[in-house]
C-alpha cells in the first residue's frame, strides 16, 4: 500500500488555472452555497481550536442574535433595509464605472437634512407633508454631495475615487458641527432623541409595525432600480458608458450629462438612506448613523453584480453576520475581534467563490521522462 502511494521519483504535478465556459445558473448558485458551507466549517474549526467552544452552539447563538424575538428580527430587517438602500444608490454609479465610495458622506448629509426638517418643522407641519419634505430634502442633500465630484470629473477629469472619499470627511465634520449646534441637553455632546414627545417627523408605525414604512420604501426602490437599470433608456446609457466611454461618445451620447445625471440619482438614493436612518431608525443624528454601511454597501453592490434583487440577499447576509457576531461576543465572552475574524472568513470565502465561477483549477502530471529533460 505504502509503496503505491509513494510518489515515483521525478514525478510532479502542475497546477493549471483555466477559464470556464458560461456556467448554468443552478450550478453557479450551487458553488455559492458550497462556499457558505465551507466558510461555516472553517469558522467552526477556528472557533473550536481557539476557544474549545461547541461550534454548533455558537452558530445557534448567532442565529438567535439576529432572530430571537420580534424586536431583534425587526432590527435585523430595519438594518438590512438601510444597507440595501445605500447599495441601490451605489449600483448605477458602479455600473457606469464611476467609483462612488462617498456613500457614507451622502448618507450623512441626507441625515443632516432630515434632522433639520424634524427639528425646525417637526411640530409645525402635518406628518404626511413633513415626510414628503424630508424625503425631498434628504434626496437633494445627497444629490448635491454626489454631484460635486461628478462635476469636477466631467469638467476637469479629476479622480472620483479620491474625491468622493474626501467628501466623506467633509460630511463627517459637517455632521459634528450640526451635532454641536443642536446639542440637547446642553453638555451631552449629542443631539438626543428629536421630538421625543410629539414624535414629529418620526416614521409612523403602519399596521402596528414600526419599521414597515422603511421596508415598503426600500423594496419599492429595489423594484424600481431593477427595471431602471435593466429596461430603461437611461439604464442602457449607463451600461454603455460603463462598458466603453469612447463608444458612448461615438454614438452621440452626451457622456458628461449621463455621468452627472447618474451621480444625482446615486447621491439622492444614498441621501434617502440617510433619511431612513435618522427618521425611520435612530430618531437622532450623529456622525455614527452611517456606521460604515456606505462602505459595506460597495461589497453588496459588487457581489450582486448590480442586480437589485440579488442585493436583498447580500445585504441580509451581511447584516445577519454583524448581528450574530455581536451576539456571540456577549454570549461567550469573546472579544469583538473573534467575531470580526469569522465575518472576515465568511466574506473571504463567499467572495472567493466568484473566482471559481469564472475559472477552474486542473492538475496534470508531468512524467518522469519529461522531468529528466529539464
Amino acid at each position: 500500500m505504502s509503496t503505491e502511494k509513494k510518489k515515483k521519483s521525478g514525478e510532479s504535478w502542475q497546477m493549471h488555472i483555466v477559464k470556464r465556459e458560461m456556467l448554468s445558473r443552478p450550478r453557479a448558485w450551487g458553488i455559492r452555497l458550497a462556499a457558505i458551507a465551507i466558510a461555516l466549517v472553517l469558522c467552526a474549526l477556528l472557533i473550536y481550536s481557539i476557544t474549545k467552544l461547541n461550534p454548533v452552539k455558537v452558530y445557534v447563538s448567532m442565529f438567535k442574535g439576529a432572530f430571537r424575538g420580534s424586536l431583534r428580527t425587526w432590527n435585523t430587517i430595519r438594518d438590512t433595509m438601510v444597507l440595501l438602500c445605500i447599495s441601490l444608490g451605489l449600483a448605477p454609479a458602479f455600473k457606469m464605472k464611476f467609483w462612488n465610495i462617498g456613500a457614507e458622506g451622502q448618507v450623512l448629509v441626507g441625515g443632516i437634512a432630515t434632522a433639520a426638517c424634524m427639528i425646525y418643522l417637526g411640530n409645525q407641519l402635518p406628518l404626511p407633508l413633513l415626510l414628503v419634505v424630508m424625503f425631498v430634502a434628504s434626496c437633494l442633500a445627497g444629490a448635491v454631495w454626489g454631484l460635486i465630484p461628478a462635476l469636477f470629473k466631467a469638467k476637469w477629469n479629476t479622480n472620483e475615487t479620491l474625491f468622493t472619499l474626501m467628501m466623506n470627511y467633509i460630511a463627517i465634520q459637517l455632521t459634528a458641527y450640526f451635532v454641536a449646534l443642536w446639542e440637547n441637553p446642553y453638555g451631552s455632546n449629542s443631539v438626543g432623541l428629536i421630538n421625543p414627545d410629539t414624535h414629529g417627523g418620526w416614521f409612523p408605525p403602519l399596521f402596528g409595525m414600526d419599521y414597515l414604512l422603511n421596508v415598503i420604501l426600500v423594496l419599492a426602490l429595489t423594484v424600481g432600480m431593477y427595471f431602471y437599470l435593466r429596461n430603461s433608456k437611461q439604464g442602457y446609457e449607463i451600461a454603455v458608458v460603463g462598458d466603453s466611454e469612447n463608444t458612448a461618445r461615438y454614438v452621440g451620447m452626451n457622456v458628461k450629462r449621463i455621468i452627472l445625471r447618474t451621480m444625482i440619482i446615486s447621491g439622492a438614493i444614498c441621501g434617502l438612506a440617510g433619511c431612513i436612518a435618522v427618521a425611520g431608525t435612530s430618531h437622532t443624528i450623529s456622525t455614527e448613523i452611517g456606521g460604515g454601511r456606505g462602505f459595506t454597501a460597495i461589497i453588496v453592490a459588487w457581489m450582486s453584480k448590480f442586480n437589485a434583487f440579488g442585493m436583498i440577499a447580500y445585504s441580509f447576509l451581511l447584516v445577519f453576520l454583524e448581528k450574530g457576531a455581536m451576539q456571540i461576543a456577549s454570549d461567550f465572552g469573546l472579544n469583538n475581534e473573534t467575531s470580526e475574524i469569522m465575518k472576515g472568513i465568511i466574506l473571504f470565502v463567499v467572495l472567493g467563490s466568484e473566482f471559481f465561477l469564472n475559472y477552474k483549477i486542473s492538475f496534470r502530471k508531468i512524467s518522469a521522462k519529461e522531468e529528466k529533460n529539464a
Partner: protein
Amino acid sequence: MGQTSSAIELRNVTKTFGSVVANKNICLDIRYGEVLALLGENGSGKTTLMNMLSGIYYPDGGQIYYRGEPVDIRSPKDAHALRIGMIHQHFKLVDLFTAAENIRLGMPGSAGKNVAAQIKEICDRYGFEIDPDQKVYNMNVSQKQTLEIVKVLCHGADVLILDEPTAVLTLQETQKLFRVIKAMKEDGKAIVIITHKLNEVLEVSDRVSILRRGEYIGTVETKDATELSLTEMMVGQKVDLNIDRPLVEKKKPLLEIRDLTIRDDEGNVAIDGVNFYIRGGEMLGVAGIAGCGQKELCEAIAGLRPIESGMMVHGDEDISRMSPKEISARGISMSFIPEDRLGMGLAPSLSITDNVLLKSYKESERHSPFVDRKRGREEANVIIDELGVITPSTETPVRRLSGGNVQKVLLGREIKTNPNVIVTAYPVRGLDINSSYLIYKILNEQKMSGVGILFIGEDLDVMMALCDKIMVLFHGKVMGIVNAATATKEQLGLMMTGSLDLTQIKDTESKKTGIAQDSNIKEETV
C-alpha cells in the same frame, strides 16, 4: 554560406486553453542559416507556438529538441540560455531609456559594460542603423523594431523569432528589414518569421510551415510554392484572390473637404490644409504610415473631433460646424467604422441586441422611457442572417465573438442606418481571408448603391485592387491623389515616406489636387 543543421525541432507540441485547442500536434524544424516562415490566419496559433519556444507558455504535450537534444523550456530564462530571441509584435522597450540602456537591461552586470561597442559591431555586421544614445520615445516604429532585433542579437541569440514584423512598416522599411534578415541568415542565424502576408513569405523565406486553426498542415519549400497554393493550405479551400472593383457611373461630389486642418489630442497639427472629395459610388483609399493623421481625419469627419479650420461640404452645405442633430436633420448620414472596433463603435460586454440598438435606441418610441429590445432582437436577427454572423444567440456579448463576426455586427448596424458616406479605418485588420473578402464585398455593394466610401487601409495591394482613387498622407499633408488602377506600389511607398510630393509637380493655377472641377462649392463662398 550558412550551416543548415537543425537548431530547434518541435515534435507533436500541443497547447490548450480551457476547451480551446490553440496548438495541436505541431511539428516544426528550424534550421541554422535559413528563414522559416510560419504562415497562418489570425487565430491559427502561430504566436502561441512561438511563445512556447520563448518560455512564455509551457506546452501541454509533445517535445522540443535543441540541436537534437530534448529540452524543457520553462521560462524566458531557459529560452535565453538556448539562445532563442523573440521580437514581439508589441515592443517591449522602456520608453524613457536610450537604445543602449534598453539593451543593457537584462544583461548580467559585467556583460553590459561595453554595450556600445557591441551595438556598433552588430550594426556593422548586418547593416542596421541605430543611434545608441537615442531615447526610445523619440524613435519611430521601424527604429524601435531595429532596436528590438539588435537587442536580442546583443543578448547572444542565434535563433530569432519575429512576430508579424512587417505589420507596422512601410514598403521601404519592409525592404530594409528583409535585407537585414537575409544578412543574418547568411551569417548562420536561424530565423522564424510569423506572418499572414503571402508576398512576403515568397520573398524572404526558404521554407514555409502552415498552420490552420491550431493544426499543423505541412511544410513546403518556398521555391515550389505560389500565392494560390499557400492560400489553399492556409484556408483549407480554393479561394478566389481577386478583389472586384465594380465601376459605377460618376456622380456629383458627395462630400468635399476643403483646406481642412485638425489638431490631435496634444494640440499638434495632425491634418494640415487637406483638400479632397468623394463622389457617390466612389471608394477613396487613404494610405500613409501610422500616425500620419488618418485617425484624426476619420474622427473629424465622424464629428467626434472638433476641426480647426476649413470646410466639410455635403451637397452644397458646410456641415463642419453643425451638431450631429442638425446634420441628420438634413438627411445626411455618415457612418464611421473605427479600427478599434471593441474600443469604439461597440460595447464589448453588452449583447449583440444592445449593440445593434446603440444608434437607434433613442429614436424608437421617442417618448417611451424604455429600451425597445424586441425591435433590437429583430434587427439583430436580420443582421445575423444577412451577413452570416456566427453566434450562439442575439444575447451573446460581442466580445465573445470572433474578430470577423464582431466586424460584421458593426458593419451591419451601420449599413442599416442607410448612410450616404461610410468612413472605414482598417476594416479587415485582424480578420481571416474569408471574412476580409466578405467585408470587401459588402463595401462594394454599398458603393454600387451610391454610397461614398473613405477607406483607410494598410495593405497597398488590397487598396490598389479595391479603391477607385488613393490619397496618400504624410505628416498630415496630402502627397497626391492617384488613380488606383494605374498607381504602382513603389510610387505610393515613396509618397508615404514623403519622398515624392505629386502636388508640387502637378498642381497648377487651374487644377489643384483634391478639388473637383464640378465642385458644389461656389467660388464666392470660398
